[in-house]
């Protein structure tokens, strides 16, 4: 969709908007019609048989006949209220008559035959102009007499709204009571129920917002609901209220509340709240400020001038916001809220019409009720959305756990594979090394034995070769053992073999370990290092036996430290005749063999990172092997 929009930006987009907006507007028109019809249908029916419509009104000293329902002019004084006087006929024997006033504003005082039976000024709820509180009063039977009886209604009005008195009903209590109960249920009990719901939802939403500060939408709605609840339970700013100033401050709640609802709508549908949007709160704040400073009735007038239009403007704004959301999102939430806003707006228009007397016969205000219902619906929807989000989180967490487990298993499998591969590689390496070691020593010696046997040699030569082969076999086997990086353990075995080798030649092996520890530990020491070192020492001893005619061989094991960490030094010294290191002169064969042996020793030392120093003179030969501080990991000179 975005691609299409990018290619041809203007037209298809507009067409899309129209194609979405038109059905929505049609739907809203249907909602308006349904609301109007619903209001007509829900209009509580009153017992018309007992209606009293013909009254004489005495106002400002003048009397004139009027027909109820009747509007009087607005006034700000409670003194000398308009007085309606009428008459009804009582038939003896009927028990328990009552007078029932379905709707009046703002307060009434009803007297039968000059005796007051009802004064609504003491009932704060009844005084609220925004509630359609009905009143009923039983007429003591002693007051009634057969035939015509007089009823007088004093209507107290506090501006700026006009006074209103609906038809008055006088008749048997049993006939009037059901109508009164219906109205009480609709206009008294239901708002209280809604307010209770609102207060609960306010708490829930406030907690949600406290726990999730990133989502101010919950906080905004909670604030709106709290205002609504306060407004519903506080006494109205009308006389004879005790804390009139506080009450007038509360007048500001309605415009602020409606502005908050707009904020909620904007945030809920994912838009940014524009900075100049704060102007929407201005009327409410002005009413608030005036309420603080000036006493009634100025706040009430301001409320009528500023507050009520603000409420209407907010509702219209809200309707626009939801319409835009519907066009953009096409989801159930925006559609539902859109319909709810339309219903509230319709109710508000209905109330305005009745205030300005375009609808004359009734003065039932329904916007507050519908607004409460809408808030409750929105709150419930939000809670539902929150619960669904929690479910999604749960599901997501479950998925995550499953995924992690899966990944873990895959990892384990691949780890096992890798391990098996590494094991196989290590085994192959070890095999290669073993082959090389056997080839270097044992193989050659066995072949030499075969060759010697074939040429008919006897005795000592073959024995020497075979012994060398066995010695080498033991060395290879020995080097395979795990010595835990302690080269001394390998040298211990070597000493035994060397001593055994030297015993028939009557050469003494002296073993000198300079430090108690012997050599430093080398965790990185590998069998192939050991084998190279031992072969170097073997070669040194063999040279001493074969070529130097030594009587004593001294092996010295020492640990040195030049400040860069300890390293080991092994030296093999003999007291033989020594030999020419240059390789020149001397008997050719022996010298050649010695030279090859020396070359071998050097290359082995290099492989292990060790340094080989040879010194030889007439008094003997010394092979000094300086071990590295750390043995190299790979066999650099191998292959």
């Amino acid at each position, binding site marked *: 969709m975005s691609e299409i929009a990018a290619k041809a930006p203007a037209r298809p987009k507009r067409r899309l908007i129209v194609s979405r907006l038109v059905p929505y507007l049609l739907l809203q028109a249907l909602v308006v019609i349904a609301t109007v019809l619903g209001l007509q249908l829900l209009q509580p029916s009153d017992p018309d048989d007992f209606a009293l419509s013909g009254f004489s009104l005495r106002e400002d000293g003048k009397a004139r006949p009027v027909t109820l329902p009747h509007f009087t002019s607005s006034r700000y004084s409670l003194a000398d209220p308009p007085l309606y006087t009428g008459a009804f006929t009582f038939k003896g024997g009927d028990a328990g008559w009552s007078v029932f006033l379905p709707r009046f504003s703002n307060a009434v005082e009803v007297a039968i035959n000059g005796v007051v039976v009802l004064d609504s000024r003491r009932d704060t709820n009844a005084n609220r102009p925004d509630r359609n509180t009905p009143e009923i009063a039983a007429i003591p039977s002693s007051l009634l007499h057969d035939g015509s009886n007089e009823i007088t209604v004093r209507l107290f009005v506090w501006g700026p709204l006009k006074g209103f008195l609906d038809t008055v009903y006088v008749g048997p209590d049993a006939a009037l009571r059901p109508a009164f109960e219906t109205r009480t249920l609709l206009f008294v009990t239901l708002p209280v129920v809604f307010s209770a719901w609102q207060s609960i939802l306010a708490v829930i939403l406030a907690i949600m917002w406290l726990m999730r500060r990133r989502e101010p939408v919950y906080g905004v709605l909670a604030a709106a609901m709290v205002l609504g609840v306060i407004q519903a339970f506080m006494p109205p700013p009308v006389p004879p209220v005790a804390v009139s100033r506080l009450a007038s401050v509360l007048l500001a709640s309605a415009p602020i509340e409606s502005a908050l609802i707009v904020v909620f709508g904007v945030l809920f549908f994912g838009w940014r709240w524009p900075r100049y949007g704060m102007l929407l709160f201005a009327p409410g704040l002005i009413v608030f400020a005036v309420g603080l400073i000036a006493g009634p009735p100025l706040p009430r007038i301001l409320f009528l001038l500023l507050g009520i239009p603000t409420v209407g403007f907010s509702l219209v704004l809200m309707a626009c916001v939801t319409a835009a959301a519907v066009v953009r999102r096409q989801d159930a939430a925006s559609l539902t809220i859109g319909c709810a806003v339309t219903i509230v707006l319709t109710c508000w228009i209905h109330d305005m019409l009745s205030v300005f007397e375009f609808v004359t016969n009734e003065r039932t205000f329904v916007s507050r009720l519908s607004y409460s219902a809408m808030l409750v619906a929105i709150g419930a929807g939000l809670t539902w959305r929150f619960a669904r989000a929690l479910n999604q989180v749960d599901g997501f967490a479950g998925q995550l756990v499953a995924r992690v487990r899966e990944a873990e298993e895959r990892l384990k499998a691949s780890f096992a594979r890798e391990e098996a591969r590494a094991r196989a590689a290590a085994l192959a390496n070890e095999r290669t090394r073993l082959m090389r070691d056997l080839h270097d020593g044992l193989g050659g010696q066995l072949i030499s034995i075969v060759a010697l046997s074939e040429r008919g040699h006897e005795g000592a030569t073959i024995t020497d070769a075979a012994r060398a082969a066995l010695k080498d076999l033991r060395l290879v086997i020995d080097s395979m053992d*795990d010595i835990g990086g302690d080269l*001394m353990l390998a040298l211990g075995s070597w000493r035994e073999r060397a001593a055994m080798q030297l015993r028939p030649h009557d050469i003494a092996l002296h073993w000198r370990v300079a430090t108690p520890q012997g050599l430093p530990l080398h965790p990185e020491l590998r069998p192939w290092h050991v084998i190279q070192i031992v072969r170097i020492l073997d070669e040194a001893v063999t040279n001493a036996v074969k070529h130097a005619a030594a009587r004593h061989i001294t092996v010295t094991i020492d640990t040195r430290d030049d400040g860069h960490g300890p390293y080991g030094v092994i030296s093999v010294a003999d007291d033989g005749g020594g030999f020419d290191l240059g390789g020149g002169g001397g008997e050719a064969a022996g010298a050649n063999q010695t030279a090859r042996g020396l070359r071998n020793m050097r290359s082995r030392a290099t492989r292990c990172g060790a340094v080989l120093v040879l010194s030889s003179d007439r008094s003997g030969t010394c092979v000094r092997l300086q071990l590295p501080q750390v043995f190299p990991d790979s066999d650099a000179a191998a292959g």
Partner: protein
Amino acid sequence: MTDQGETGEAITILLVEDDAPTCWRLQDALVKAGYEVRTAGTLGEARSALAAGAPRVLLTDLRLPDGHGVELIRETRQRFPDTEIMVISALGDEESVISAITVGATGYLLKDAFPTDIATTVRDLVAGHSPISASIARFIVRRTQSSSEPPPGPALNTAKLTPREIDILWGIAKGFSYAEIASHLGLSRQTVPGHIKNIYRKLEVHTRSEAVFEAVQQGLIKL
């Protein structure tokens, strides 16, 4: 180089080895040293030879045509506790030597040892000095260290070894001579061989049930 027992009689040796040249070689060396040597090529022959009388020393190979030398060592150890037993090994590897030690052998002899060494080893053994190699010592001490997972190789219970004995084994494993070990540990040089024999005795598993007990103790068997 003639060696006689305390009674003046020649020391009798039963040599069990199936490879004839090896057998001859060892026999020659021992006879030259003045020992009275009987030979057997199989487990059966060895048993009948034992039936004829207990030798002072039993030298046996482990791999025999009709059975394993370990059987012979165990039987001999039970029937003739005074007989010194040594295993003959080609390589002196831990596998063969340790398995022989656990059934009662107190030493080993390399098949390619020089004749003088062969005689010396037997003489020392009769004198109560058990030979031990650096690699065997290394194997035993490494077993004393090893933790949860038993290392490969024959089962071995090192629990009875004293710290001093373990120190001696360490010294041997690192190539020190008995004299050096004795001076390091403040012992007399003559006592070191006796310690080694003690070590062998402690490593011996006497009966089958004891073997099971040891195995449980070491966690080799889970009940």
